[in-house]
């Protein structure tokens, strides 16, 4: 079937345009890097550092990045990508470009290591769980068993995500059978629901309570110290800026970095 010449040319042009459009789109948004960082007139070498970090690291890692950039102006840091650790793992395995990986538990790093995309990881911080309630603890919750009170709306992380796995361990350790009103796929959603009054209580990280700026009160449940999430950090194997990546990881593990993490409520690794 021979197409009439005009139709064939038009179709070819349209398809080419479409292909260019698609590759253009993917190239620009494939990585989190927007060409920022290289500001203030100084001709900086290298691309901005791409960091993927778990949702619970948001405040602390922004502070770490700022400190790091002040000390190392030759290594700009792109806006850090925060999300649930599993979601980030999927993106990395799916081909997203990344330099530094910082997750909320060891298990989430598994698929990335298995795919040969992450180097050796080091634990850099730890986090334990707290029961978050609105300020003043209006429902008078004292421990995990109080969460099973009928009519109480309790929100937790879904068992598939790091804070959820920890929650399940915590609850089963205490022998508490909880039917939550909702299971969120990242801890920030739990925080939001308790903060705006849609939930009466939630199980979140100690760092979330600390970062809430007074919008949450935290109750330390019994056995909290036994359920510790160890946060791993690693340099990606295919990192576009390996030197900068290693420098950043060293900074996080240094006493300066650890001080910043402690300020946000993290425990020692």
């Amino acid at each position: 079937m021979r197409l009439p010449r005009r139709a064939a040319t038009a179709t070819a042009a349209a398809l080419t345009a479409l292909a260019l459009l698609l590759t253009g789109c993917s190239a620009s948004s494939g990585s989190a890097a927007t060409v920022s960082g290289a500001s203030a007139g100084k001709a900086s070498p290298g691309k901005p550092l791409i960091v993927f970090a778990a949702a619970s690291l948001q405040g602390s890692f922004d502070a770490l990045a700022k400190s790091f950039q002040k000390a190392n102006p030759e290594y700009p840091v792109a806006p850090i990508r925060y999300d649930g650790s599993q979601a980030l793992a999927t993106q990395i395995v799916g081909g997203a470009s990344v330099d530094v990986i910082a997750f909320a538990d060891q298990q989430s790093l598994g698929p990335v290591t298995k795919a040969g995309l992450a180097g050796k990881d080091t634990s850099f911080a730890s986090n334990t769980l707290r029961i978050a309630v609105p300020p003043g603890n209006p429902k008078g919750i004292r421990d995990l068993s109080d969460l099973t009170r009928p009519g109480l709306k309790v929100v937790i992380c879904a068992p598939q995500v790091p804070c959820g796995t920890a929650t399940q361990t915590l609850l089963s350790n205490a022998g508490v059978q909880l039917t939550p009103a909702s299971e969120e796929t990242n801890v920030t959603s739990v925080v939001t629901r308790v903060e705006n009054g849609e939930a009466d209580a939630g199980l979140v990280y100690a760092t979330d309570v600390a970062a809430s700026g007074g919008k949450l009160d935290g109750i330390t449940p019994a056995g909290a110290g036994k359920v510790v999430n160890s946060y791993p950090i690693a340099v990606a194997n295919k990192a576009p800026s390996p030197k900068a990546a290693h420098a950043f990881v060293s900074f996080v593990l240094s006493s300066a970095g650890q001080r910043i993490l402690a300020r946000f409520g993290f425990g020692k690794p």
Partner: protein
Amino acid sequence: MTLPRGLYVAALVALAFLVLPVVGLVTRAHWSTLWSDLFAPASLTALWLSLWTAACATIVCLVLGLPLAVVIARSTTRLAGVLRTIVLIPLVLPPMVGGLALLSLLGRVGLLGKPIFQFSGFSLPYTSAAVVVAQAFVALPFLVITVEGTLRTSGIGHEQIASTLGAGRWRVLGTVTIPLIAPGIAAGTALCFARALGEFGATALFAGNAPGVTQTMPLAIYTAFNGVGITQDSAVALSLLLLVSAAVIVGGLRAWREDAVR
């Protein structure tokens, strides 16, 4: 009439654009575990929840949307334009924003939700009813716009004759207006159901994510997807299950109605 050949090529590209991702999904399935994933109690629960909430949401859309569509179709051009813009709001809002909007109205501390909670102790979020509300919110425009379009093109000639023959306004509506647009209603219902079935953002935010109560198939897929290892395979299995169920129901609905009316 035969069309220019280039048009067929472009249409083929469009079809490929729609079909190939599904093909990709099918190839990702782990055939060894597919059967157990598909019929695991958790996935069947989520599927059943999705189906009955979407059905309820569709009924809500019919009850609310048909009168609205009739009113818009019989309004003056200017008023109709305004009303149509309002109806398009849920389409224009990103679903998560829709969920947020529903929360701010009907949440426990919401504009209407707060007095309702204080008066009756009942709040909508985290209930299956909330799922129906969220789905109805996003799916309503599909029904209204489809039916209204059909009504406008069918004109008022038959209704006028019917009233001169002695039929009152309700009778005209029930025996003339609605039957004449039955195909449009069927199309709108199918679209509405499909949209409700696939709704994620508004449901996740407004109704929450609790298995058996508010965890519809899309939420189950997303939760599984966020998990590690095996759960990602079950996400694929769930996606296929939802795809097949939706196709069967929507396809069945359209075929039946289109035969019946001619």
